[in-house]
């Protein structure tokens, strides 16, 4: 195992009122890995993501990204450092079209600076053309071509999740945090998505950190898998090991469902 941790969480705690949603949690995500994060509902997984991505500030502890202390930095600065996240509950821009939802993602667009908009229109136009092309590619890949001009707020639950995932394909990020992108997504389409995640990981060198309740997907993609419960990491290792752990089976997987 290499010691090149791109995300390094050290003793992080977050309280909500009396509840310790994340409790002295420490974990590492290796560069170039697809690391899974599983655990029962309310284990603190999303809260941990929120802290890594800068959406909430931990009460104590430190988070390192690429060796730098990033604790408490706002999300937009983390994005600039190459950290990108998706949301468990889709955070689409509901009054913008699906295409615009993707086009707004790249952050270094010259057209976001008023000086360029006003005085360097050609420069802006060129960049804009580029972004649009990329967004169209992504949208086709997600099979959302027929709704690209639909307001994102009018998309179906699953389509919103796809859009959420599509954002990650719009930029060259070092690390992508995926919070339950699979929930609500059709399984057939999910196969393609999984293949794409693998491709981005292998060909482009993205690191993925994935929260998921879909064990097939976790099993297919992730190594290692980290298990959280009640705000703490309780196990870590390859999926086969986790699956074999009786405590985790009891707490997390439950018994298989019987047909009616």
């Amino acid at each position, binding site marked *: 195992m290499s010691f090149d941790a791109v995300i390094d969480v050290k003793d992080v705690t977050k309280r909500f009122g009396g509840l310790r949603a994340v409790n002295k949690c420490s974990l590492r995500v290796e560069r170039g890995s697809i690391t899974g994060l599983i655990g029962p509902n309310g284990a603190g997984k999303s809260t941990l993501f929120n802290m890594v991505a800068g959406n909430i500030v931990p009460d104590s502890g430190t988070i390192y990204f690429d060796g730098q202390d990033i604790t408490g930095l706002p999300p937009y600065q983390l994005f600039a450092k190459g950290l990108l996240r998706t949301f468990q509950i889709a955070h689409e821009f509901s009054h913008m079209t699906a295409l615009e939802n993707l086009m707004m993602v790249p952050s270094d667009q010259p057209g976001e600076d008023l000086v360029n908009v006003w005085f360097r229109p050609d420069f802006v136009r060129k960049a804009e053309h580029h972004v649009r092309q990329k967004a169209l590619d992504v949208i086709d890949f997600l099979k959302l071509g027929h709704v690209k001009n639909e307001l994102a707020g009018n998309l179906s639950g699953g389509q919103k999740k796809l859009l959420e995932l599509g954002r990650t394909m719009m930029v060259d990020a070092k690390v992508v945090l995926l919070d339950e992108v699979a929930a609500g997504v059709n399984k057939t389409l999910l196969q393609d998505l999984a293949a794409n995640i693998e491709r981005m990981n292998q060909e482009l060198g993205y690191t993925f950190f994935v929260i998921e309740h879909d064990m097939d997907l976790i099993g297919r993609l992730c190594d290692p898998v980290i298990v959280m419960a009640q705000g703490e990491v309780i196990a870590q290792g390859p999926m086969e090991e986790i699956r074999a752990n009786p405590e985790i089976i009891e707490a997390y997987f*439950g018994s298989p469902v019987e047909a009616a």
Partner: protein
Amino acid sequence: MALIELKSLVGGYGGVPILNGVNIAIEQSDIGVIVGPNGAGKSTTLKAIFGLLKVTSGAVVFDGADITNAQPDKLVPRGLSFVPQEKNVFTSMSVEENLEMGAFTRADDYMPTLKWVYDMFPPLLEKRHQKAGELSGGQRQMVAMGRALMSKPRLLMLDEPSAGLSPRYVIEIFEQIVKINKSGVGILMVEQNARQALAFASKGFVLAGGQNRFTGTGAELIADPEVAKSFLGG
């Protein structure tokens, strides 16, 4: 006679129709499961039954009566009940108040039903005075189902009840659904955990592009290689 029957339902949100002729029929003893790709119109179908969008042609027949385009507050007393995909609890109200809201249309004593719901979902009894917004995802889903059951429905419609739940809760929720069905409530649900759901479904419907693609028992659909490949992820 079918408990509920959708006859060539066409409808949408204004503009182009989303549903282009959906046919579904469910008996009181059935668990019907709708599956299909994202944006197929599954949620829209449930909303159309519940009068939440405009049906332009076709009919919804419930227990022999035409309820096409009826308002939700008229449907609940008739015995329909619906758990939407998202935003399905009153976050600022306590668990018990959420359940009371489910019994809003009932004039009779709902205490026995409340007890029945608490028996079915013991965690809710424990948290009865806690705000629903402070619950974990699984408990919220239980509140949502409990609220829907408080009206003593004859048909319970669920939109992706298992989404976002950990595998253990998925199993638990499905077990509860089977139990509820056994107590005499017809079930119509949308699921993306399609294999698991079809496994106990007595009727399965595959929807795509706002139309029925395949219809059969759950087992039949799982067994159909084409359905499995195109809609169930191989």
